[in-house]
């Protein structure tokens, strides 16, 4: 009987390999990072005591600072307990040591410096100096119909709110923050996705969907950080404009989200609605914005294919980019030099969504050893990890 059971297990495993239809050649050199990833596990809930939902940004704590410990993971929440988008006010911290999450910081639902309220997005970073900067694109009713312009909020490393930045160019801080952090100075890149978007019930009479606008931008922020004091915003520069934006009843909005800076100063951007990754050259020093031409802002690195509402984007080993798909549960690996998609992997196969994992994935962050990555599952309000 035992022999038969072992035989059955072996047969099923063999059958599974055939059914998957994909098996890497054991003798071939790895084409990329994703094929080294084999384990996926939920590590913690991202919903704090006030019931905030919809985890968005993920950022790893680089060193001990304030109440934060090295390698802890910060996660923002975009929704409140009502599940209304653009109303989340909390950042949780996950400790891989205690394997629990706790509230790190929260903002009042209304701040004078934050037009429209508070709703934390995928824009978050931690500076070496310990300051946490997070973007807010708020709403009153969970739709772009009541959307405010939002702001950038600064917290200290103890989770205490310090100040907020707003201004005419800050129109919905939305996507990942790419940065150069020199300690006493820093350069941040943040996408602004919400300018001019109407309510999701406003339809284009031809398509019957909300109209597509091309108002979204990427801003460069130049900061200096006086010793022991909060960062000072010196300069804001639009370095790219004309990305696609569209309101959406279920997804709040589509807009540029993933930002990843290369060592040569090239900024890669995921343009969600157009389903492409583009490159903004000389992003660090550029004074004039790259504008939309031929349905793209910047050089197209890759378009369509496995990309399916590309959102967050991070660097992975091999100088490749990893992109989270918003409309299915896949992450896509891209070689930006070769301008090609390597492959994708399902990291959320929740069949309750159609397609599986639709609307579940947002933020990404590499694990400290650079061998795996964290991701959030929006449907479960959890932080997950993928490992070799």
């Amino acid at each position, binding site marked *: 009987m035992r022999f038969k059971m072992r035989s059955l*297990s072996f047969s*099923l*495993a063999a*059958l*599974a390999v055939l*059914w*998957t239809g*994909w098996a*890497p050649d054991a003798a071939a050199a790895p084409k990329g990072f*994703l*094929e080294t*990833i*084999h*384990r*996926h*596990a*939920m590590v913690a*809930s991202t919903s704090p*005591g006030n*019931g905030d*939902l919809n985890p968005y940004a993920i950022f790893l704590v680089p060193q001990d600072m304030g109440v934060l410990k090295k390698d802890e993971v910060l996660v923002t929440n975009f*929704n*409140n*307990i*009502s*599940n*209304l988008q653009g109303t989340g006010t909390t950042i949780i911290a996950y400790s891989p040591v205690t394997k629990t999450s706790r509230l790190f910081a929260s903002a009042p639902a209304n701040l004078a410096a934050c037009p429209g309220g508070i709703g934390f997005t995928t824009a978050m970073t931690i500076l070496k100096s310990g300051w946490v900067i997070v973007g807010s694109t708020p709403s009153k*009713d*969970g*739709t772009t119909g009541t959307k405010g312009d939002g702001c950038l909020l600064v917290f200290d490393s103890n989770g205490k709110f310090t100040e907020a930045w707003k201004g005419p160019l800050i129109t919905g801080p939305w996507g990942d923050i790419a940065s150069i952090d020199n300690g006493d100075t820093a350069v941040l890149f943040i996408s602004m996705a919400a300018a001019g978007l109407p309510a999701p019930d406003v339809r284009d009479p031809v*398509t*019957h*969907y*909300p109209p597509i606008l091309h108002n979204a931008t990427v801003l460069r922020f130049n900061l200096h950080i006086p010793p022991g004091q909060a960062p000072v915003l010196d300069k804001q520069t639009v370095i790219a404009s004309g990305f696609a934006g569209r309101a959406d*009843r*279920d997804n709040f909005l589509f807009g540029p989200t993933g930002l990843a800076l290369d060592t040569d100063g090239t900024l890669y951007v995921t343009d969600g609605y157009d389903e492409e990754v583009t490159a903004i050259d000389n992003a660090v020093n550029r004074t004039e914005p790259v504008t939309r031409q031929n349905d793209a802002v910047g050089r197209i690195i890759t378009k369509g*294919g496995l990309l*399916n*509402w590309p959102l967050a984007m991070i660097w992975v080993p091999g100088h490749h980019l990893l992109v989270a798909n918003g*409309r*299915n*549960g*896949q992450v896509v690996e891209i070689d930006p030099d070769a301008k090609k*998609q*390597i*492959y*994708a*992997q*399902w*990291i*959320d*196969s929740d*069949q*309750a969504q*159609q*397609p*599986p994992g*639709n609307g579940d994935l947002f933020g990404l962050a590499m694990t400290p050893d650079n061998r795996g990555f964290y991701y959030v599952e929006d*449907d479960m*309000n959890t932080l997950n990890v993928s490992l070799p």
Partner: protein
Amino acid sequence: MVNLGNAAAAGEESSQGVFGFLDNWKRSANLLGNMWGLRSELGKAGLVLAVQETSEVFGNPAGGMRRGADYDGLTVAVLQMNTQRAFGWYGGTFQVSMEQVHGRNLSADNLDAYQTISGIEADRSTRLWELWFDQKLLDQQALDIKIGQQSLDQEWMVSSNALVFANTMFGWPMVPSADLPGGGPAYPLSALGARAKYWITTPLYVQAGIFSGSPAHDTSGDAQQSNRSGTSFVLNRGIMAIMEFQYVYPGLGAMVSPDEGEALSRIYRIGGWYDSEPFADQYWDNTGTPLASPDSSGIALTHRGAFSFYAVADQMLWRSHVDPNRTFNVFGRVMGTPQADRVPIDFSMNFGFTFKDPLPYRQDDTLGLAMGYTHVSSALGNYDRAVHKYSGAYSPAQGGETYIELMYQCQMTGWLQLQPDFQYIFNPSGGVPNPLHPERRIGNIAVLGLRSNIAF
């Protein structure tokens, strides 16, 4: 099914006065929002409360025993505890659910069809439904064990695409409904037992369970009546053993090549069950005489145990490039047993299509067309012939019954669905005489209905 996700997303707007929950009624996932603070207080203890009312009116303008319309409804309350949030115990879930069935059943009153038109039709009652604890174990939560009072229609032989339809047989199929004692441990009943689900490897799962062989102590009458409160907790009626293999694509960790076509999700299941209860022969009595004979003892020959096999497939056929929420899906389910001597139904099947997001920017709506077929066992058909032979009464041999269903499920708000529904039943109950007009069969039936689902 009650949407626990909706409940978890309940709002706190109700704190703004007694009617504060109405402030955002268009966007709220629950009509009563935070239930005046109750849900958030429960949430602090890791508890989620979901209450859903399904109400419907169905009528048969043509066919059936008689014509008319009935209202029926079901209120289900589910309380679920996440033990990690409640007290730091990783991977545990505790659930208790109650049901309150109200109204009348059109199928029983007017139709006399095997495949009843609504999955919520049941005897009027207020009862405990499920009471179980689920624990996830091993790396990547590969093993999942659930122990307690369980309703098997929740996770066995399920077709996810079929669940949107109203007819009962798109949920718990006809074979176990008709053949198992008391209809089996499925809505509105449940049974004590345990099941384990194990992730063998991507994309294969296996789940196996053992449950009480009957959901009620008394199986000679109506199990719903003999277990009215749902608290019989039957353990002395033999066993029901069941096993199911599931192939799931996409599986967690599955790789996708850029030159592959569109990833179309699919789930295939195969399984079987065995119930050790006694099963009555459909033709012979305990003396070897046909039951229809005037010489029969009237006591059926009994057989020890019965089994059945099944297969279920859900397959996405197409997905729009413009709007990926727009998908076209097919499902099919077949189930049968070779033991036609001891069961009234030896085969049943469902087949149908769902079109999600069928109209522009209606991402949460579903249009569906499907059918069901069931076959009366040959032994029961022979019994019908024997009745005619021995009594001379009009007693045509029962054969197959078929129905089709066309429906549109419309998500009106986050908490309200409306579902107009049309069903047509061919050869009701396989062609039995009309009890009101015993000289002719029940005519084919047209049914129109409107169902609403409200998440409180």
